């Protein structure tokens, strides 16, 4: 059992930088929660406050209902008594100790006897595939290996809560993918609570059971990954999650002569007066080519199944696995991402097709309204 609760956490650094602003979140025991957000949004600061390496200027932190920190009640459990694991972004291995000594240190501090220590260290090194590094020093191993050692050092003491600060950001793409799979598998076997800080949405999406999207020190949405993707509750989350990012039409940006909503709102009378921004994901856009047999079904019975508009293709960006098409509809740019290579683009004229359910609407306060 290890449920972590943050209540109205504030952290203001010297110089008035409000790194964390009224953050409230409950991280249930056994979950793999990602703190996702752009660089500088207060993720590391939040993690350090949970670990006790930094203290909030206001609010409370609880573990299983017991106060870890509260300025008001004067409670501040020191880091070394919180029993959490933390993998630093820089790994922070101790340069004067061998890999085995690095891993064994936490066990030693727990007062575990030598024989058991040796057994545990061997076991964890086996688990992390670093058994052959035992006698080396941190400066003698690669970044990926250091990352494994940093993880092993924490796993050795099997903490109920494991905090990870962008642990994969220093690795190359292939290793990152492998480690993602390994971390997820590890969590599925150990079932401990993991809080994982990252600015990489793919990492957050692939591994987490819950994602907390942060921006400017505040929590923007806290939900399971697919919900974050399918139903972003506000404009910030909608524009941050997704790659390529969501296309937006905004009331504030007028196109050449056409209404800002391209007539989409006409089909949603309930939203017509509320919505001030409309979003559609590139992968939710289909293209219908002149002369192709796969024509979409146009509007029926007054409502609309699909929304169709003539578009002009500006350019095509093949990424290997997909084709990103940049096109213009009545002065507005849209990016579509296609699984299959677009054909018949000779004259650059296509039909842009979007399913009715695929639109995201946001009101004047940038909150989702559909």
């Amino acid at each position, binding site marked *: 059992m290890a449920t972590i609760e943050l209540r109205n956490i504030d952290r203001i650094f*010297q110089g008035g930088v409000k790194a964390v602003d009224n953050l409230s979140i409950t991280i249930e025991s056994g979950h793999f929660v990602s703190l996702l957000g752009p660089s500088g949004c207060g993720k590391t600061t939040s993690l350090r406050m949970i*670990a*006790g*390496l930094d203290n909030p200027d206001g609010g409370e932190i609880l573990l299983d209902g017991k106060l870890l920190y509260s300025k008001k009640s004067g409670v501040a459990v*020191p*880091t*070394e*008594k919180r*029993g*959490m*694991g*933390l993998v*630093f972004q*820089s*790994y*922070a*291995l*101790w*340069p*004067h100790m061998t890999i085995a000594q690095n891993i064994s*240190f*936490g066990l030693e*501090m*727990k007062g575990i006897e030598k024989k058991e220590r040796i057994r545990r260290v061997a076991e964890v090194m086996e688990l992390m595939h670093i058994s052959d590094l035992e006698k080396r*020093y*941190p*400066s*003698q191993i690669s*970044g990926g290996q*250091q990352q494994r050692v*940093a993880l092993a*050092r*924490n796993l050795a*003491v099997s903490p109920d809560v494991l905090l990870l600060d962008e642990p994969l950001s220093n690795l190359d793409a292939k290793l990152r993918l492998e480690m993602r799979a390994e971390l997820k598998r590890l969590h599925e076997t150990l079932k401990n609570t993991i809080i994982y800080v990252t600015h990489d949405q793919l990492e957050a999406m692939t591994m987490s059971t819950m994602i907390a999207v942060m921006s400017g020190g505040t929590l923007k949405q806290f939900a399971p990954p697919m919900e974050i993707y399918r139903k972003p509750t506000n404009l910030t989350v909608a524009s941050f999650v997704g790659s390529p990012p969501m296309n937006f039409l905004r009331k504030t940006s007028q196109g050449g002569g056409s209404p800002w909503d391209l007539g989409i709102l006409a089909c949603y009378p309930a939203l017509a007066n509320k919505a001030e921004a409309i979003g559609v994901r590139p992968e939710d856009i289909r293209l219908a080519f002149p002369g192709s047999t796969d024509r979409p079904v146009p509007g029926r019975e007054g409502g609309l199944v699909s929304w169709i508009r003539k578009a002009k293709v500006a350019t095509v960006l093949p990424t290997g696995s997909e084709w990103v098409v940049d096109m213009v509809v009545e002065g507005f740019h849209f990016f579509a991402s296609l699984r299959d290579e677009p054909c018949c683009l000779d004259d650059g004229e296509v039909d842009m097709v979007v399913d009715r359910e695929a639109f995201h609407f946001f009101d004047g306060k940038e909150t989702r309204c559909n």
Partner: protein
Amino acid sequence: MYNSFKIGSPGVAAVVASVTILIGVMLVAVDTWFVREFKRYITIGGKGARQNPSSLGAFKAPAFLLSVLVVGISIVLPLGTIIVSSLTWQAGVFKSENFTLAFWMGREIPAHPGQNGIFLNKEILGSALNSLSIAGFAALIAGISGLMVGYIVVKLPNTRVAKYLRQVSFLPYLVPSIGFAAACLSFFAVRRGPIPSLYGTLFLLILVMSMKYLPFAARSGIAAMMQVGNEPEEAARICGASWLARIRRIVVPIQKHALLTGIVLPFISGMKEQSLVIMLASPGTEVLTTQILRYIEYGYTQLANATMLAIVGIIFVLTFGLEKITGGNLASGFGGGK
């Protein structure tokens, strides 16, 4: 300043001292301003450093020659001259009867009333012991406090405490040694509250000397701690290590070389220190450097030179002995290598 003190005009000395302090304060202001402009870069962190020796290629021979030349002019030449001088009755005469070991281990050297060679000279041996204990303890105190200052500054970045420590630890550097010694002398000459009069004690010399070398030790301590940063210790906290365990198992071992440098450099300077001890040494607390001055005053050049060589010898043996014992490399404390 020393002269104005000697001829009994402390007013002039005070004016000279004030001017030097004023210049010093301006330097500190400039230093603080500069340091503010720079971000802190952690260059070692937890990843360990690697050595990347690169071949000098075509520059190998000239580089080697240059280093030989530098070593020759700055060390071998002067040291050789002094050695030869301490072994001859008359300077510059290279006849076999002119060479002697009298200044090293003779008894009752002719024309030097009451003086034995320095190995048999009670005064010199006593002064050597004084020099060793003063420089040794002062260096220990300065080195350890220097690293502690560094520890606190890194622990509490951007706080008033850190800023204050930084500047205060640098203050003794601004005051000329003699002025500093004079101030301490007048302050500690009489009993002050619980502090008894310290005049004429080794303790006073140790105290003043450790203060004099604190600026260097603190600077190198701050640099060394900044280079490693706070994370290794934070990682140990995560592992449940108490403060004592962290200091003993993480901070001190990582800073071993920096600590060694912070002790050895003040020790070397302390063994050679003159301007400070000239004011504070009294009968009974004479040190090797004051003995040298006395010999020069008497015109005992060879004895002065032999004593100087003794200082060099002591420094050499102790420094390299320490290096051997700790398995360290002194230069690495400056942030290079290993």
